């Protein structure tokens, strides 16, 4: 039994960087339209991510953590999620949040500093993203456990990067999920770096996916830049979780094409030549090559997809640039359901001081 929990020795790949398919690819049951939709979702993610980087450069956002390079892992995974499934994510899951319907402008307004969360998580099945590393995986477990106890057939997806697998909460979450039969798919995007620290400094395990066996759950490794492999392995893991409650661990091997955030300087810890080797493995380019060869995409269709993404980008930009600070009083409004007396006093004193200063 235990041996079968081990992940494959190397990541599952169906779609080669040159756009050709391996013979071993199972029938994924994806229509041409769905494949084009995957492509469209990746392009949309990259376009909006690129907008965010430029808005940060223009001083509109405090910082931005780019998802560039990881669109294949995320969109493949997102396509395997059911509408009622929940995502508990980090600050880099823009492909997932877009696919779940979270308005991108709300995320950017968050990074502008309007508030920490500007959408209702319940509306999208997307928990407020967690900046303290790996802490949210436990929330995913609790949410999944409560849902299962309530007879709800949803699956919860917990997203982290390679660095997070060193955190105690990563261990506790996988252990709790397994012991409780909580239907969670732990989706680790190993993008090579935790800021500057390479993945090899995080673990001596043969792979991150190998850690699964220690929790008695199935481990999987996929080529995260192969959207089809990411989709299919996630689909298998989610089906198992939905049917039996058994959690699993997926390691998607990918590469963070941008610095950790716009505040980072990656020239201090990696070479341009290294990043260059990943350009040819790009997840969008790869699917584009396949879909051109099948005739599902051509220059005209691609131009249309790019055009739509750019149009959306323009309207997001307009919304973000016009976003303004909330009223000062609101800083005191959501600390408790009913602000206690000392907080009301403090708020009123602050407001009086501001008014007196004529601000």
């Amino acid at each position, binding site marked *: 039994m235990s041996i079968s929990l081990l992940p494959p020795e190397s990541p599952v790949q169906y779609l080669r960087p040159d756009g050709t398919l391996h013979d071993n690819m199972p029938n994924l049951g994806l229509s041409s339209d769905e494949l084009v939709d995957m492509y469209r979702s990746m392009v949309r993610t990259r376009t909006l991510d690129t907008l965010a980087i430029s808005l940060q450069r223009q001083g509109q956002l405090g910082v931005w953590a780019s998802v560039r390079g990881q669109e294949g892992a995320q969109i493949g995974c997102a396509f395997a999620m059911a509408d009622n499934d929940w995502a508990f994510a980090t600050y880099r899951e823009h492909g997932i949040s877009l696919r779940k319907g979270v308005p991108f402008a709300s995320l950017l307004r968050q990074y502008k500093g309007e508030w920490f969360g500007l959408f209702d998580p319940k509306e999208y099945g997307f928990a407020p993203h967690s900046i303290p590393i790996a802490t949210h995986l436990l929330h995913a477990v609790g949410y999944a*456990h409560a849902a299962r106890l309530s007879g709800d057939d949803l699956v919860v997806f917990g997203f982290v990067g390679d660095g997070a697998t060193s955190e105690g909460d990563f261990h506790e979450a996988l252990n709790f999920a397994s012991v409780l039969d909580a239907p969670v798919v732990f989706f680790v995007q190993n993008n090579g770096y935790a800021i500057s620290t390479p993945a090899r400094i995080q673990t001596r395990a043969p792979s991150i996916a190998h850690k699964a066996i220690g929790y008695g759950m199935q481990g999987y490794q996929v080529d995260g830049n192969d959207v089809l492999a990411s989709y299919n392995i996630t689909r298998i893991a989610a089906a198992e979780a939905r049917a039996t409650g058994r959690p699993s661990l997926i390691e998607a091997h990918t590469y963070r094409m941008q610095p950790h955030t716009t505040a980072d300087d990656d020239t201090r810890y990696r070479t341009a030549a290294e990043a260059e080797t990943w350009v040819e493995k790009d997840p969008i380019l790869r699917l584009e090559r396949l879909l051109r060869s099948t005739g599902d995409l051509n220059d005209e269709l691609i131009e249309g997809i790019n055009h739509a993404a750019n149009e959306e980008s323009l309207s997001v930009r307009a919304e973000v640039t016009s976003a303004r600070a909330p009223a000062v009083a609101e800083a005191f409004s959501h600390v408790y359901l009913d602000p206690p007396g000392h907080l009301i006093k403090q708020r009123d004193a602050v407001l009086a001081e501001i008014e007196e200063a004529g601000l």
Partner: protein
Amino acid sequence: MSYTMADALNAALHDAMAHDDSVVILGEDVATLGGVFRITADIERKYGSDRIFDTPLAESGIVGTAIGMAMYGMRPVVEIQFDGFLYPAFEQMVCHVAKLRNRTRGALQLPMVIRIPYGGGIGAVEHHSESPEGYFMQTAGLKVFTPGTPEDAYSMLREAIADDDPVIFFEPKRRYYEKAEGQLPVTTEPVGEAVVRTTGDTATVVAYGPMIPTAMEAAALAVDEGWSLEVIDLRSLNPIDYDTVISSVKKTGRAVVVHEASLTLGPGAEIAARIQEGAFYALEAPVQRVTGWDTPYPPALLEEEYLPNADTILNAVERALDF
């Protein structure tokens, strides 16, 4: 009929489970064993293992899992086995439990309770006698309750579980077997109100949790000195009902704050600051503090010296009178 504080807490949990199906209990050894102090005794038998379950031994995991369950719509009640084992959960409590409502602009809330047996006086080994309430009094978004009587233990725990904000519920473990006369259930004053346990006009003694019986003992002994102490039981440490404290100090002119936690930046520091802001002209002497030392909690054979007692409280009253 009499019952202990432990009985009252157990009854509150039973009654909360019966009252609301969304109440669930999780923690180490809470289900089959009923908790190391038996506060969760017989709940599994009555409500089954979906409603109360033993978790792996990991405090961050327990609190983090409870957060997710609360996000789904349940009302988890978590037991942390001892005060000194709370710290692995600190990040979850400060980064998430306290902040989720605020982070989501009120879209999500965490109606959860974290129960923590705390304080010294039981001859325990290290890490079993700590008073970490100050950390959570300083953390916006958390409520901090601590009962000082068996009646309050029942009523305040019921109130904590019904609260839509997260409550850190500190239980004075050395008082688990203190008795009260009467019947459960019992409803005491709303938890936002501090309660004057005994009235007096020589000095105001501000205390909470395990120090309530100690302060009451001091008040009884004070009579022999010709003093009458007014003992205020704060009950809620976040928020604190300063109005009750300040109006008492305006009457007595002297204040003594008592707690087991250390002196420096302990709860008494803030309470003293609020008293001087609110009752400056009424004060006849500086606010006195009777607290644990600025040392780690000492070995058990020294804890009698470390812990505030009736004599050290009366000494503080005398210092205030002699000032």
